């Protein structure tokens, strides 16, 4: 499992703090050490000048023994000084400490600070190779134990504060992270609450930091889409159940009543024939719903052939004209348009609209089917004279199972015709709309000449 975001961030912060503090400590240590060396150097150089002066003055009037006495006086042991005197052959002549006789002149590096340990004590010296007139040369050593002690103490303080700082950083970082990531936690709590019963939950965007607002917006939009499709789905299932109940109930009652007593063959035949009518209605409903389900899934893929809309429309009109002339209605066709699409599907869409127009047209009136080509679209308009569709029904007209007049459900299908028409039009990348005028109903389809080219 991956580490949580909080612990990961805290971990990063702690490591960064540690690294920064260690570098800072190293720089400080270096600086202090350097400062001490400078101090020692200037003290040693000052002493060196005094020694040179003493050497010149004493050498002229007395021997080396007197010189050592002078040097003992100039470099007092109780103040932490030690020294060693070399003769002109670079051999140690006199040293303030026995251990110093081991030092060879040629082992010493010139013009550099020299570090020498005598027992437990730490000394620093400086060998000046400036040309002098004297035969003698002196290496003065300064005790720097107090520097060492200070450095030790300084490092201790540094380490302790470093550990404390990291611990503090970890703790505080954790608290801050918790606080900063609270909106995320709220989002996840909300997401865990979302279920089919609670699809209405949304994240309040105003409370969120700007970085999360976009994510939350996308999340909300996803919930919107889910809720819409879920509602459509459950509405559709409810509608199906409702629509199936009536014919199934009829069939059940009819068959049970038929069996409740012995009947003549003619009666049985009558009942079976009536059952067939109900079954045919059910079968048509099922295939219509499968068609719509395919459209919903996006698997309704129209063929890609040249369709002369006038030819298709004429065929459909020839068919429905028979029914229309019963009411003395004339169906007129004008114009033409050629689109790339599926002739069977488009024929079905046309048939649905024309059948609809015939059903609601005034007797003796005229139905107009107008085809035209505007810009890159083919326009199909089917207009009939007749009572216009009431305002409250217009927005639902293309919904499944929606009927303007529920009581007239039995003569014209189950209210899937316009939904199927819309699915076909949309599968072709087009649009369908209703244009109502006074005492006129006009369905207008707009199809791109070549969908998804």
């Amino acid at each position, binding site marked *: 499992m991956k580490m949580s975001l909080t612990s990961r961030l805290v971990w990063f912060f702690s490591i960064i703090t540690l690294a920064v503090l260690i570098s800072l400590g190293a720089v400080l240590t270096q600086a202090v050490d350097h400062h001490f060396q400078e101090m020692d150097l200037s003290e040693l150089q000052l002493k060196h000048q005094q020694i040179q002066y003493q050497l010149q003055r004493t050498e002229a009037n007395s021997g080396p023994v007197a010189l050592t006495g002078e040097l003992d006086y100039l470099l007092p042991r109780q103040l932490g000084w030690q020294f060693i005197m070399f003769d002109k052959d670079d051999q140690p002549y006199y040293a303030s400490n026995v251990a110093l006789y081991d030092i060879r002149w040629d082992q010493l590096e010139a013009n550099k600070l020299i570090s020498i340990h005598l027992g437990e004590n730490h000394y620093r010296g400086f060998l000046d190779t400036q040309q002098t007139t004297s035969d003698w040369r002196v290496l003065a050593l300064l005790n720097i134990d107090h520097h060492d002690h200070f450095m030790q103490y300084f490092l201790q303080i540094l380490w302790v504060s470093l550990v404390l700082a990291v611990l503090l950083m970890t703790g505080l970082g954790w608290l801050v992270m918790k606080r900063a990531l609270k909106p995320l936690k709220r989002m996840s709590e909300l997401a865990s609450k979302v279920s089919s019963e609670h699809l209405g939950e949304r994240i309040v965007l105003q409370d969120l930091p700007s970085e999360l607002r976009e994510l939350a917006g996308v999340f909300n939009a996803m919930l919107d889409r889910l809720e819409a499709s879920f509602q459509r789905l459950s509405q559709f299932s409810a509608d199906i159940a409702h629509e199936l109940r009536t014919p199934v109930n009829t069939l059940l009652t009819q068959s049970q009543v038929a069996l409740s007593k012995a009947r003549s063959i003619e009666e049985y035949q009558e009942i079976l024939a009536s059952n*067939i009518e109900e079954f045919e209605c059910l*079968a048509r409903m099922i295939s219509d719903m499968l068609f719509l389900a*395919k459209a919903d899934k996006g698997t309704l893929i129209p063929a890609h052939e040249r369709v002369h809309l006038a030819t298709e429309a004429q065929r*459909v009109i*020839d*068919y429905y004209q*028979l*029914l229309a002339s019963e009411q003395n209605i004339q169906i007129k066709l004008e114009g033409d348009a050629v689109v790339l699409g599926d002739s069977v599907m488009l024929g079905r869409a046309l048939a649905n609209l024309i*059948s609809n127009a015939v059903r609601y047209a005034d007797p003796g009136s005229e139905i107009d089917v107008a085809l035209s080509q505007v810009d890159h679209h083919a326009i199909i308009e089917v207009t009939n004279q007749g009572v216009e569709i009431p305002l409250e029904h217009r927005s639902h007209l293309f919904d499944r199972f929606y009927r303007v007049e529920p009581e007239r459900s039995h003569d*014209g299908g189950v209210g899937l015709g316009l939904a199927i028409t819309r699915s076909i039009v949309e599968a072709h990348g087009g649009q369908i709309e209703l244009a109502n005028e006074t005492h006129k109903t006009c369905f207008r389809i707009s199809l791109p000449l070549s969908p998804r080219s």
Partner: protein
Amino acid sequence: MVLAFISKAFGHKRKHANKASDMKILLVEDEAKTADYLKQGLSEAGFNVSLARDGLDGLHLALEEDFDLAILDVMLPGLDGWQLLQAMRKQDRNWPVLFLTARDQVQDRVKGLELGADDYLVKPFAFAELLARVRVLARRGNSAVQDQLSLADLQMDLLAHKVTRQGQRLDLTPKEFALLELLLRRQGEVLPRTLIAAQVWDMNFDSDTNVVEVAIRRLRAKVDEGYEPKLIHTVRGMGYLLEDPTE
């Protein structure tokens, strides 16, 4: 009176399509009730039906006997309809094949037709529709070109585009002529409304079949009104039938 034709609708076929009794049909369908009723229906329509209830049995039967037509369900246990068809074709069993499918997906149709199926029906389908298609497939190859069609005293001259009843000329519109031609060519068969809409008006999708009713009513007015016996009959719940009831 009309109802009497229901019982006749299938049984009658023995007389008209007396060749049907020689027709052997292989039916492969796993759904028990459907299979039994299909077998009964087809047998009563005069066909000699052998039923297999799964793909392997079906293949067995196909390799053992000779048939004139195969009706295959697509979803079968053992061997599905497509595989069965392929196996049959491999063994040179080249009878016409009609598929019954519950999945009306484009890919299925394409696949079926690529494999050499001759027709397909999507469930749920009307039995009359199946019967009509079976007869078309069964007749395939032995339909002689005719220019005269007739039933009782009804005569149709296809070349002269002329129809007479009892010697009197009937004035028909082109669509009425096409409708009557269909009824005459397939006389004695119950033709479902959807089949009529598809054949005469080329309406190959579910449409308002009230139109067919109107068309039949008008045709009947011209063909049957004032004449005896009545030739155009409605078989309720099934479709329309052209036959001479006195025969």
